[in-house]
């Protein structure tokens, strides 16, 4: 069993940061387990979502931010919908990803690599270019595309654009990303 002296690991700044950024009152969680019961992704989580809420209350920053669960959360809002205390749990999960990324902690690299490839495409073209995202992801992970078996199914359907759909406001979009980065590093 995992026994912890809560006082020794409690990080109050972390608790406040999560409350502040998510706009949610973590103290309202009374561990009913509804969020966990409805979470479709619980079968791959290392820490169930209600346990994340409990660990947040206890200020166990490392435990929460190093978990794989925060990267596997599908943002389906099932937890938010079923929480009897109206906590937007999915939004808390989002905020945990934000903080973990800022601190350079990512327990499921494949997921963020894919997201980064997606955002790089948006930044470059203004609209996401699906084939480009996959190519970028494959290049960054060095993985052979695992969906290669789907190619004969989708290729004849004429849905994979060979070219990106660039927009006129491309520079405007690039500026959004640039300013976001400047704000972050300030």
């Amino acid at each position, binding site marked *: 069993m995992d026994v912890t002296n809560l006082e020794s690991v409690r990080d109050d700044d972390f608790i406040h940061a999560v409350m502040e950024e998510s706009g949610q009152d973590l103290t309202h969680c009374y561990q009913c387990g509804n969020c966990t019961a409805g979470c*479709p992704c619980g079968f791959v989580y290392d820490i169930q979502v209600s346990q994340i809420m409990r660990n947040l209350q206890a200020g166990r920053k490392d435990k929460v931010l190093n978990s794989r669960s925060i990267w596997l959360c*599908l*943002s*389906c*809002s099932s937890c938010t*919908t079923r929480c009897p205390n109206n906590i937007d749990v999915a939004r808390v999960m989002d905020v945990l990803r934000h903080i973990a990324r800022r601190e350079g902690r990512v327990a*499921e690299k494949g997921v963020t690599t894919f997201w980064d490839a997606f955002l790089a495409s948006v930044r470059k073209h203004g609209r996401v270019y699906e084939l480009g995202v996959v190519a970028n992801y494959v290049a960054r992970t060095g993985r052979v595309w695992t969906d290669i078996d789907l190619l004969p*199914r989708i290729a004849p359907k004429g*849905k994979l654009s060979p070219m990106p759909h660039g927009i006129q406001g491309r520079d405007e*979009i690039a500026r959004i990303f640039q300013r976001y980065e400047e704000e972050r590093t300030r």
Partner: protein
Amino acid sequence: MNLAYYPGCSGLGTSREYERSTRAACAALGVKLTEIPDWSCCGSTPAHALEHALSGALSARNLVGAARAGCDTVATPCPSCLSNLKTARHRMADDGFRAKVGRLLDESADKLADLPDVQSVLETLVTRVGLDAIRAKVRQPFAGLRVAPYYGCIMTRPADVMRFDDPENPTSMDDLLTALGAEVVPFPYKVECCGASYGVTRRDIVARLSGRLLGAARDAGAHAVVVACPLCQMNLDLRQTQVEWPGGKAVDMPVFYFTQLLGRALGVPDAELGLEQLCVDPGIAFRRAAQVVAARQAEEAAQAAKAAAKAAQARQAAAVNEGGRA
């Protein structure tokens, strides 16, 4: 109402048939869509998982564009775009957030205080056109077609942001499909997640979650699943060969966009609805429906024959009786 239209990036690619059928069905119903000029990507999940102000800025640029085009409402077919646009608008009520988003954009923050309303194309059709008006325009009602309506996880959730239909048991698409003459099967996983975009990075998640959805549709006796989301459609249709079917018994389950069935019932030609762009042959569903109709007709004919025979017997008996008395 002045309706702006936000197609979403996948509408130019993997969900091209959703985009085409949306335009065709709206045109058939007299709904005019004004595409937002030079619209850009909302950033989808990768953006909101990275930072909310970034996601808000990418969404807000499009809402500002819609307002500038003189529109008071934005309609989008894609639930992921819907969720981002709606959430962005919702959070603009917060001064701090609005200021933060404003700093990322070329716009001033006060432009962001009053952005157009956002709704899904499904909401637009059901609430603005209305089911009665749609029913009146149905030219080829479906007969015998049993469908499992699948809404996906975020079109109605979280409820206080989405403000449309029931967050756990939505019925708008059920009602629409019923108005088209289709039969809606009881489907318990209407809003359960299909695994979203994790197919690329964690195929095990999508295989399990989408398999569960397809299995439930199969067990409910559906001829097809009907969806309103590009990602759901891709997972259930394109990835059907990858999913884990509970109970092991795989079937070919066609997966339609609701706009394709709507267009078909309204008499729009199949070619305009992109039916040929679906991976699992949609004809399977129509053939299964035709079998249901044929079986029902055979049953009715048998009943009628039985009744006729009974009547004939009764007449004969009566004649014999009459003869006996004479």
